[in-house]
């Protein structure tokens, strides 16, 4: 981003001055760039914009696959949006989503930060072990879900062997209304803390040494160093990493599909999952499209916030 900014400035001011650059060449260059860009924009439009438009149009019909007459029926275009306002299960799903997203993002930032700060000491042992922290993140999410299903199934879980040995009678959290969401949160945090960790590590690697060294010479303790120098430096990074995770957390699917199926009752049913059930189990396509539009709107707003935050962040660093 910084580079681009600088280049833009160079483009604007000094290009013509550089050897061999005529306005004609400049025009040719712009044409060439558009030529390169055109296929991407065209294909992106076809594979993402068109479907979104189709989704929008569908959201104004009561389309239900089991009832062909409902296709292209625009007699009551807002019916889905009205239903949406009174659908308690949907509202509950937004609430579940909010709880899941906020708690997992906070936990992932926390764990990611702690592990990154530790690993940043870069002892040989740590450099060797570093890769092992990446494992949860690169595993296929469906495998992660199955792994946790194993851990949460008393018949086969090593944890429950231990509980049995200790004589504890522990319920499995995935069927317990007050613990099911926690079970998902634990699994999700395990899966994604490595993501925040590597982002923080990358930022730490670029941290200027001078300030730290100066403080060290002044006799600051390791805690003081972390609190007064490292953390303020990481503020922007934490924000961005958190926002990325926040948006991704809206996509949580395999964990819920495998672990709880949205239950017990609806305590772990997030919006994404609710839409899936409505559209692909009961083929209420029109209604699902309307709910999806609402979700998309929320994501666009969040994405916009990210872009602002990222550009803002780099401004601050400049």
């Amino acid at each position, binding site marked *: 981003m910084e580079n*681009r900014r600088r*280049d833009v400035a160079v483009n604007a001011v000094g290009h013509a001055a550089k050897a*061999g650059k005529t306005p004609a060449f400049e025009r040719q260059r712009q044409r*060439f*760039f*558009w030529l*390169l*860009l055109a*296929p*991407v924009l065209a*294909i*992106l439009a076809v*594979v*993402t914009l*068109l*479907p979104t438009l*189709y*989704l929008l149009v569908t959201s104004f019909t009561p389309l239900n696959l089991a009832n062909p007459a409902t296709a292209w029926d625009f007699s009551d275009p807002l019916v889905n949006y009205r239903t949406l306002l009174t659908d308690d299960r949907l509202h509950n799903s937004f609430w579940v989503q909010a709880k899941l997203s906020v708690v997992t993002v906070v936990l992932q930032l926390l764990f990611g930060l702690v592990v990154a700060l*530790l*690993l940043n*000491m870069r*002892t040989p042992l*740590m450099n060797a*072990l570093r*890769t092992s*922290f*990446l*494992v949860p993140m690169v*595993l*296929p*999410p*469906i*495998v992660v879900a*199955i*792994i946790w299903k*194993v*851990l949460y199934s008393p*018949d086969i879980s090593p944890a429950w062997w231990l509980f049995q*040995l200790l004589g504890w009678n522990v319920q499995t959290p995935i069927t317990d209304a007050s613990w099911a969401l926690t079970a998902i949160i634990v699994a999700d945090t*395990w899966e994604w803390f490595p993501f925040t960790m590597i*982002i923080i590590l990358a*930022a730490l690697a670029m941290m200027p040494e001078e300030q730290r060294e100066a403080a060290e010479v002044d006799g600051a303790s*390791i805690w003081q160093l972390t609190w007064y120098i490292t953390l303020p430096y990481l503020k922007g990074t934490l924000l*961005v990493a958190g926002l990325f995770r926040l948006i991704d957390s*809206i*996509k949580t*699917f395999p964990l819920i*599909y495998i672990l709880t199926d949205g239950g017990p009752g609806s305590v772990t049913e997030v919006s*994404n999952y609710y839409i899936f059930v409505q*559209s*692909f189990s009961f083929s209420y*396509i029109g209604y699902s*499209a309307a709910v*999806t539009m609402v979700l*998309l709107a929320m994501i*666009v707003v*969040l*994405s916009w916030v990210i*872009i602002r935050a990222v550009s803002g962040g*780099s401004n601050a660093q400049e």
Partner: protein
Amino acid sequence: MPRSKLDAAARRNRILANTIVIALAIITLLPFLWFVVMSFKPADDIFAGIDGFFFTPTLENYTSLWNDRFAGSMLNSFITSSVSTILALVIGTPGAYALSRATMKQERTFSLLILASRMAPPVAFAIPYFLVYRYMGLLDTRTGLILVYLTFNLALVVWLMRNFFDATPRALEEAAWIDGASLWKTFMVIVLPMSGPALVTTAILCFLYSWNDFFFALTLTRNNAMTAPVEVVNFMNYEGWEWGKIAAGGTLIMVPVLAFSLLMRKYLVAGMTAGAVKG
């Protein structure tokens, strides 16, 4: 002697930190290792509780799994992931270059479009794709999956490669132009060769995301194009969960991504942090 005291304290800290890191690494890896070990357990030992802790490893879960169907689904996974990755790179890289070098008023709009299509929940695309594929006969085809993977892969390529191009100096290109090389030739001969590492990074991530996809494969395929992650879930059959087979299947699915990630850790980390750390 404060100096040696300081050293001793530093050494103590290092030992403490090392110990904590070892413990954390074990905790992180344990669930995963347990799963892999389970894939080598005979069915009886899986349910045997603590008595099944020691067992004679067996490959029976793998051999019973390696029928035509699972092999076929692995092949589907492989083909759809690689083709989609290659397509996205071929189409996206020139575009990313242009976006990086050109001065365009619409830049922020493009960024938003690209970011949003990367961020959109799969279900937003799955519904319209499902409806359209019904009519086009693309349901349950590899082509259909490859196309749908472009929704996130293309955005990823543009996003990552533009970051890379932004960070590369333009001196070489400009020198080539002065020498009279055409714009296209400059791109092919100068720019692309120096993008090697970035292309590798991007390719790994695209492959990883496509390979790991579960949602699209679940909703847009039936059997012909079914990918390995869906096939593994399929082992939850009417007669119950075949844990041994599930573990073996899951292990096989993670082998390629794990191998990739570990061999190319540096690239992978570079790719994943690119978006967030530098913007």
